[in-house]
């Protein structure tokens, strides 16, 4: 760091050294009769020493030579001449010059060291101040402001570029300082990608950023610090470089800290939102199911009254009951879809035979399937598959239900499963009108139904729920038409089932 002396100081140092020597000469000249020549030599050496301490090495060397010359001219006989009467004085000159040079060297070295130590101390202090100020920054804007203020003290404009890696290519967000042009941004990009400092000295003094420091944080590069010098003094930039690098790493750490603080706050918010959503869902589910349970139960009670009610009343009670069940079905679908769409359904996956949920689905849909000819094709050696039984039962139920709803009484419904190389493939097909060809690719979208306005009851949620569940398992689902009916196929990844130790024969 500069000691804060005026910049003209460098230029007046040499004249000052000369002036010092002349001053010594005129100070001592009147006393030349009183003083021994040896003492006058001492006074000149003192001058050289003072010049070395105050003015530095060069002026001290000048003072040494000038001192010898003046001493010779004014004090060594013959006076006022460079001629030397006694050859002995040549030794005096040589010693005087040598002592002057050595003294000036030592003194200058000392003062340089002191200056360096002071500069280092100053650097440490400003870096400490920067670290302290950045530590208190709560936003990137504040951090950029503090950096800007700090680098302003060394005549530089700082622009903090924070890398945004959320997109496909890295984009920079600018904080503080000047707005960078596209050339400067391309330098910044290469500094970011190569993780090295890029300097473009040739552009110095043109008011553009010429130093690009990558912000290397512990986990990754967080961005780039672009510096625009306010003067064209490239040399100073060099001397400040360690300081600039230290500042860049401080800024990098702060950006990382702010990033993690932000992420933590964000995930906390998400947890709260998720809690709220699931508590709304579960209270909705409870509050709506309770009256539906009463409706179904009370309608049943009416139908079973003793003595029996008139036939019309029993039929009405049956309709009330069926409608309440239908609302419940709708409600379950809506709640399931809400959970699945939130993307946070916790799969309760376990290794199990697929056959098991075929059996339970058929039992659940026994009434609906009674009027159809169900053909099941499950090889006995199907491997175990890892899935959430409750959710997959929903898929199989929904598919069988659709197959039954969109087919006539007595129609065939086929359910087949087979193991492919990497996945289990399951298909549910029926004999019926099939999906409308023009909407085949939309049937898995929410609230899209195969047929517009039909007499078949439904909401258009069944297949969307199937798709969401299969997707959550990492499988695929697709619909197709085949001659005389429709088919829905889905797959589940097979993976490696856990080993089963066979029991020893009894």
């Amino acid at each position, binding site marked *: 760091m500069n000691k804060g002396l005026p910049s003209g100081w460098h230029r007046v140092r040499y004249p000052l050294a000369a002036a010092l020597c002349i001053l010594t000469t005129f100070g001592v000249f009147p006393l030349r009769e009183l003083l021994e020549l040896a003492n006058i030599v001492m006074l000149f050496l003192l001058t050289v020493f003072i010049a070395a301490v105050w003015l530095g090495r060069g002026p001290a060397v000048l003072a040494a030579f000038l001192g010898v010359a003046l001493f010779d001219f004014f004090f060594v006989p013959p006076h006022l001449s460079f001629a030397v009467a006694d050859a002995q004085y040549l030794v005096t000159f040589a010693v005087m010059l040598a002592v002057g040079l050595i003294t000036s060297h030592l003194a200058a070295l000392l003062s340089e060291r002191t200056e360096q130590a002071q500069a280092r101390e100053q650097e440490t202090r400003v870096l400490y101040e920067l670290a302290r100020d950045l530590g208190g920054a709560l936003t990137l804007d504040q951090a950029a402001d503090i950096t800007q203020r700090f680098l302003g003290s060394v005549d530089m404009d700082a622009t903090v570029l924070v890398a945004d890696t959320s997109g496909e290519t890295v984009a920079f967000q600018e904080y503080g300082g000047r707005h960078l042009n596209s050339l400067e941004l391309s330098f910044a990009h290469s500094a970011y990608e190569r993780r090295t400092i890029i300097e473009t000295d040739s552009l110095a003094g043109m008011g553009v950023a010429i130093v690009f420091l990558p912000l290397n944080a512990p986990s990754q590069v967080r961005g780039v610090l672009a510096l625009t010098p306010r003067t064209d003094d490239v040399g100073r930039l060099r001397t400040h470089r360690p300081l600039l690098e230290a500042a860049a790493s401080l800024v990098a750490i702060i950006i990382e800290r702010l990033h993690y603080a932000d992420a933590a706050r964000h995930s906390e918010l998400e947890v709260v939102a998720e809690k709220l959503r699931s508590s709304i869902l579960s209270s909705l589910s409870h509050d709506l199911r309770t*009256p539906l349970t*009463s409706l*179904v139960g*009370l309608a*049943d009670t009416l139908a*079973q009254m003793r003595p029996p009610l008139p036939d019309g009343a029993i039929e009405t009670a049956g309709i009330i009951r069926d409608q309440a069940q239908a609302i419940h079905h709708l409600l379950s679908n809506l*709640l399931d879809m809400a959970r699945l769409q939130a993307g946070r359904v916790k799969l309760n996956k376990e290794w199990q035979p697929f056959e098991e949920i075929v059996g*339970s689905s058929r039992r659940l849909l026994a009434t609906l399937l009674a009027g159809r000819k169900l053909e099941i094709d499950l090889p006995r050696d199907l491997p175990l598959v890892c899935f959430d039984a409750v959710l997959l039962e929903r898929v199989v139920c929904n598919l069988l239900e659709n197959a039954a709803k969109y087919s006539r009484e007595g129609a065939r419904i086929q359910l087949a499963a087979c193991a492919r190389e990497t996945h289990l493939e399951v298909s549910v097909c029926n004999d019926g009108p099939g999906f409308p060809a023009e909407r085949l690719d939309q049937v898995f979208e929410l609230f899209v139904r195969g047929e517009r306005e039909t007499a078949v009851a439904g909401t258009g949620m069944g297949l969307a729920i199937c798709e969401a569940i299969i997707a959550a398992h990492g499988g695929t689902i697709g619909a197709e038409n085949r001659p005389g009916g429709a088919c829905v196929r889905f797959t589940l990844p097979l993976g490696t089932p*856990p080993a*089963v130790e066979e029991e020893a024969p009894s």
Partner: protein
Amino acid sequence: MNEPKTRVIVVEDEPQIRRFVCDALRKEGCAAIEAGTARQGLDQAAADKTDLVILDLGLPDMSGIEFIRDLRTWSPVPILILSARSAEQDKIAALDAGADDYLSKPFAVGELLARVRALLRRPWQDGSARPQHQFGEVEVDLSRRIVSRAGVEVHLTQIEYRLLAVMLANNGKVMTHRHLMQEVWGPGHTEQGHYLRIYVGRLRQKLEADPALPQHILTETGVGYRFQT
């Protein structure tokens, strides 16, 4: 009729549901006792000999699990749970705590009465345990370790036989995966659920007429199994 009526306590905070459940029970000839809170339910159960408790899991004053644990400290009375369909974990917790069966809301009265009748038979508690069992075409004689189907002897492995015996002993009840694993393989093996599923599958292959549509060894998806004759 001097024989005392079957006493059933209905613990449910929703008055409408309590009403139709009790109506149905009374038509069945049971004495239905209404309780709006868990506290009342426990008091009623302590007041007189009780044959069955029907319990809603969502009570205001106490969790259903606590109620079951409390009751189970002094009474083996059968417990039938009423709960929402989506809450498998709650059902499993209730069953593991000592409940015997569950019914998902909304439920048909006919289904409720079928479960009540099955639980009131209490074949696993009445001390009249017989070694002979018969379901479908299958006959089992536990005293002679003989299993036959349509008159032909069926060979079961040790584990298959043990599994069948546990199921017969819990006829009509829902058995959680955990419960079955513990009974058949012992306490250290409750995490290896796939063993249970494989052996249930084998048992079905050997004993069920149509293993893909079992009539006796039923799957309670996400919860466990139920055996019914």
